[in-house]
């Protein structure tokens, strides 16, 4: 579904990605793990058009989308839940969700999807008229994922959904991610520092180090790999 070839990204003179290649098949969960500064977020930002690439190509459903404007990429069904969640703090939960459905015109479908995300995350329903800035970190993450789902994406990119969230809540959120993948057939590219969890829910993984893919393989193999175990799984 998504093919990335030799992606290169630089911030000024600092190169963040040195030719990253990825492949994400339809309806799968693929993960990108690595330490801080390995280039995980930069990869996602380049895929969603937030930063321009220096070289390389991004092909989505057979069309090249390299360096298109973010709003055009979203319109194709690629949705990015950025690091730090970036919810709109001074809008209500409901307005945040309506922003997620910004490109849609089907009022009925939007209402149905809003009900759907409320069934996945009932906490949001209780707080729908509340300003999003008043939510806890975990609730904000739920909102960020829900907001992305409101756009009816075909391809969802999640950047560090576990960051700064209580461990219990992290488990719950990951369960929901898997559930959404299974029931909706949504393809997911997951970026995580919590490699354990990420390799547990995904089918295939890439290990990024200083802007390069140093290892890739089925998630089960990566979990059994001594190198990965030592560096990322704390075993």
């Amino acid at each position, binding site marked *: 579904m998504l093919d990335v070839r030799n992606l290169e990204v630089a911030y000024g003179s600092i190169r963040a990605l040195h030719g990253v290649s990825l492949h994400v098949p339809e309806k799968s969960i693929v993960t990108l793990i690595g330490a801080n500064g390995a280039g995980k977020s930069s990869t996602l930002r380049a895929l969603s058009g937030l930063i321009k690439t220096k070289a390389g190509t991004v092909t989505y459903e057979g069309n090249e989308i390299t360096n298109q404007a973010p*709003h055009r990429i979203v319109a194709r069904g690629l949705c*990015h839940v950025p690091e730090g969640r970036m*919810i709109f703090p001074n*809008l209500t939960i409901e307005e945040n969700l309506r922003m997620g459905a910004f*490109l849609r015109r089907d009022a009925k479908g939007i209402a149905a999807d809003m009900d759907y995300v409320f069934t996945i995350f009932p906490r949001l329903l209780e707080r729908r008229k509340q300003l999003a800035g008043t*939510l806890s970190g975990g609730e904000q993450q739920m909102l960020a994922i829900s907001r992305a789902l409101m756009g009816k994406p075909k391809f969802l990119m999640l950047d560090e959904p576990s960051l700064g969230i209580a461990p219990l809540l992290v488990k719950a959120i990951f369960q929901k991610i898997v559930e959404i993948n299974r029931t909706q057939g949504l393809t997911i590219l997951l970026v995580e520092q919590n490699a354990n969890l990420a390799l547990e829910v995904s089918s295939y993984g890439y290990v990024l180090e200083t802007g390069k893919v140093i290892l890739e393989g089925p998630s089960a193999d990566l979990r059994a790999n001594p190198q990965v175990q030592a560096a990322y799984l704390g075993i």
Partner: protein
Amino acid sequence: MEQFAQQLLNGLFLGSIYALIALGYTMVYGVLRFINFAHGDVFMLGAFSGLYLNRWLGPSLASLHWSISLTIILVLSMLICAALGILIEFLAYRPLRNRPRLNVLITAIGVSLLIEYTGQHPAVFGATQQPFPALIPANNISLTGNLAVTNTQMIVFVTVVLLLVALRYIVMKTRMGLAMRALSLNPTASALMGVNNSVVISFTFGLGSALAAAGGILYASLYPSVEPFMGIMPGLKAFIAAVLGGIGNIPGAALGGLIIGVTETLVGGYSSVVGLPTGYKDGVAFVILILILLFKPSGLLGKTEREKV
């Protein structure tokens, strides 16, 4: 007491116009985080388009009721200035979108001077003051006691209120308004929702400029003379009103405008009591600016944004 009430009323009418201009400053600040110093000049262009439209269309509008011809001239001027505002953003500010904000700010001052001095050229508006036509027939309405309100003041006030209600509807209830609010909170996130930020920014400039144009015509109806520099003072005062209310805050801008208008009128009315020339009324806004920056830089209704991480 009656004199005080009368001054208060006069201040309210003037303040409502400041409010209209202040909204443009605050909305543009909201989406682009910079002060569009050319906004006062769009106000001036609004007054001039009212003048010229009345000159050209006046004969054909003569048979209509004044309220209809006023509406036509007002709406056309707002459309013209909305287009000009969008053009200014497109030509002057958009190329600097990813540059340091100071560059845009300085450019805004340049655009302001360009408009003012181009306007002074005899082939454009000319440097001399021109009388502004009475679009609203002069007529005093007596309230209780000795309070008097002119027809013009009433129409100005009603028009401002209608425009504010319309603006509130656009910002709070429409899709574009939601996008404006989202963009002002986080441009990256709004882009990731599929918002074309450039379109929203253009829309915001158009909306702010249309309000400034209406402000220009209403102001010129209260003080019926126009010249290319007429936008400087009201523009600065409205900018202060926006800061006073909390820059980026829409109700704040309206409140700030009213406060500046009332304070200015009261100072003008009573400065002789303490032995000051009435000209000091123009200074009071700046005193307010200094005070607000010293004691409450976020403005009366402005909140320091807080987000949990």
